[in-house]
């Protein structure tokens, strides 16, 4: 369904953010992309959704195809229309709009009124709480509810592939578990999911396959179950085990730089 091949992205012509990243999502799959801050996760999603240009980024190598059609150079609206919809990092719901209006904004890409009504029903069914609060301003929702709204808003466009950027960000563990269940449910209803996460545990529990990004490259990839049990993933999140601290201490003590600075005498 989605095929990213050897993708390279840079910002402002000089800063390489992604190099040679490949990832594929088949219909009905949940694929997780893990990585720490600055690893290039958001860049990958920007490339997929066509918003790189807003950040002065450009694709300089590789390709992205969705259902056989290239997505490169297409504008965000066309990509949404093709069935690829993103839930951005930090939710970014429209706080001053009501819940209902947020959903309406989510369905703005299509003109099919019947489909939109159906999509709204589905969203309200999945998140009954949103139905209760439909007339209230979205900013008044709790963090978890806002995340539900952000997902529901994206579902309004009836996506074939849903891109989720750190849906667990800043949420309580209980809510994160809930989000995980929601993702699984969406997937059961036939939507493929590409899940970008820092929360490795949740992502790996939901995903079938996963890749790990490190400074713009894929450093690990495989079945989610297997990745969950590796040292590397653990190290990435807790900094344990890999002996990094010793190396740093060694370097400092051996006086790598052998430079001196004394206090300023005034």
């Amino acid at each position, binding site marked *: 369904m989605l095929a990213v091949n050897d993708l390279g992205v840079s*910002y*402002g*012509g*000089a*800063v390489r953010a992604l190099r040679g990243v490949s990832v594929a999502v088949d219909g009905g799959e949940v694929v997780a992309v893990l990585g720490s801050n600055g690893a290039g996760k958001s860049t990958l999603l920007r490339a997929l959704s066509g918003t790189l*240009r807003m950040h*002065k980024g450009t694709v300089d190598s590789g390709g992205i195809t969705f259902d056989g059609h290239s997505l490169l150079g297409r504008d965000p609206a066309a990509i949404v229309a093709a069935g690829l919809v993103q839930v951005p990092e*930090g939710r970014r719901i429209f*706080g001053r709009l009501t819940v209902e209006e947020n959903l309406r904004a989510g369905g703005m890409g299509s003109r099919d009124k019947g489909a939109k009504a159906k999509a709204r029903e589905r969203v309200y069914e999945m998140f009954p709480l949103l139905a209760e609060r439909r007339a209230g301003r979205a900013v008044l929702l709790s963090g978890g509810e806002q995340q539900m709204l952000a997902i529901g808003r994206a579902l309004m466009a009836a996506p074939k592939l849903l891109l989720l950027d750190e849906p667990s960000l800043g949420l309580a563990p209980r809510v994160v578990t809930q989000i995980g269940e929601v993702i699984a449910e969406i997937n059961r209803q036939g939507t493929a999911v590409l899940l970008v996460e820092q929360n490795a545990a949740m992502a790996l529990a939901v995903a079938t396959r996963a890749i790990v990004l490190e400074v713009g490259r894929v450093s690990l990839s495989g079945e989610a179950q297997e990745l969950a049990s590796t040292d590397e993933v653990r190290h990435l999140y807790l900094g344990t085990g890999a002996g990094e601290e010793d190396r740093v201490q060694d370097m400092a003590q051996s006086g790598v730089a052998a430079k001196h600075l004394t206090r300023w005498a005034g």
Partner: protein
Amino acid sequence: MAVVLCLVAAAMPFYLSSFWLQTGLFCFAASIGAMGLNLLVGTTGQLSLANGFFLAVGAYGYCYFAGARTTTGLLKLSGLGLPPAVAAVLAVLLAGLAGLLFSPIAGRLRGIYLGVASIGLIFLGQHLLINVLRPETGGFNGRDAQPFSLFGFSFADSNPDLFVLNVKFGAVERLWYLGLALTVLAGLYYRNLLRSRPGRAMQTLRDSEVASAVMGVHVIQYKARAFLVSSMYVGLAGVLLALGFRHVVPDTFGLDLSADYLAMIVLGGLGSVAGSIIGAFFITALPLVLQTYSSAIPFLSAPGQGGVGSSEAARYLYGVAIVGVILFMPGGVVSLFRRFGRRPPGAPAPGSTVSTSTRTSTSEPVAEPATHNPHPRTDRQGRTA
């Protein structure tokens, strides 16, 4: 380069007619005014459209301090009759004081809100000049500016008569040198300032108010001082304008004049001494040049004949130039020189972004990020964490 230009300028009175010298004087005045505005907008990042007001304070301040009590028609004009040099200094200080008085407002407002609030000063100023301070300003009809003199040397046509290399040095020639000297001094001061502690503080203030505060810059104090110095520059420009016009009327100092000055610094280059001068010469001289040569330029007709007159042609050209520069040369004309001339050796092609803002220009992404973007935008939702 700058020295050569100064020498050329110094030789001009021997070659040019008084019309050109008069034009040159206005260009010098505008250069000083543009530097003042650039100090505020380009260097410190405080948008102001109140330039016309501070010009008026300088011009009228000079007329009032130097002028004598007279009666013209029904209106009794008051004046202090001070020596012109003293009057000029006082006028500059008065403009500085006006800037200082406005700075608390500036301290509270940001970006475009400050810009529009400063428009208020223009209209308030017009009202004061025409309706309230009539004995001091002469109201709608304005008042004369006393000829300048320094240590007994008069910048007038005679007294004493003066010939240099057989060229008669009248008022225009003398004022040309005064303008040139003041422009050079103003430029030097501005350049030095940019390279020293206060200049660094102002430029960081422009790029990131928070960062400069955290590094120890007293933000409010620096904004106030930027306003003070800027309005003194502009006040000095006002004095020179008054000397050039010999008679000042309130109409001159409207919003259009402020827009002209803003256009000067944007066209020339924000935050740049050379840019201020280039922009000032272009905007000031353009209408005068077109006027003079209107008969020689096709499509232009004499005033009042319905076609496109020279002053209109100048306005078109100038409007289009503003749009064009912003579209294609966001760093102003000086960025051209900079791009070809001064890439530091060994520096990579301009590319990496220092992004204190979420949006920077798309048309010219990286060459001059900070000059081009003196007001980093904050997130629209004002998210903070």
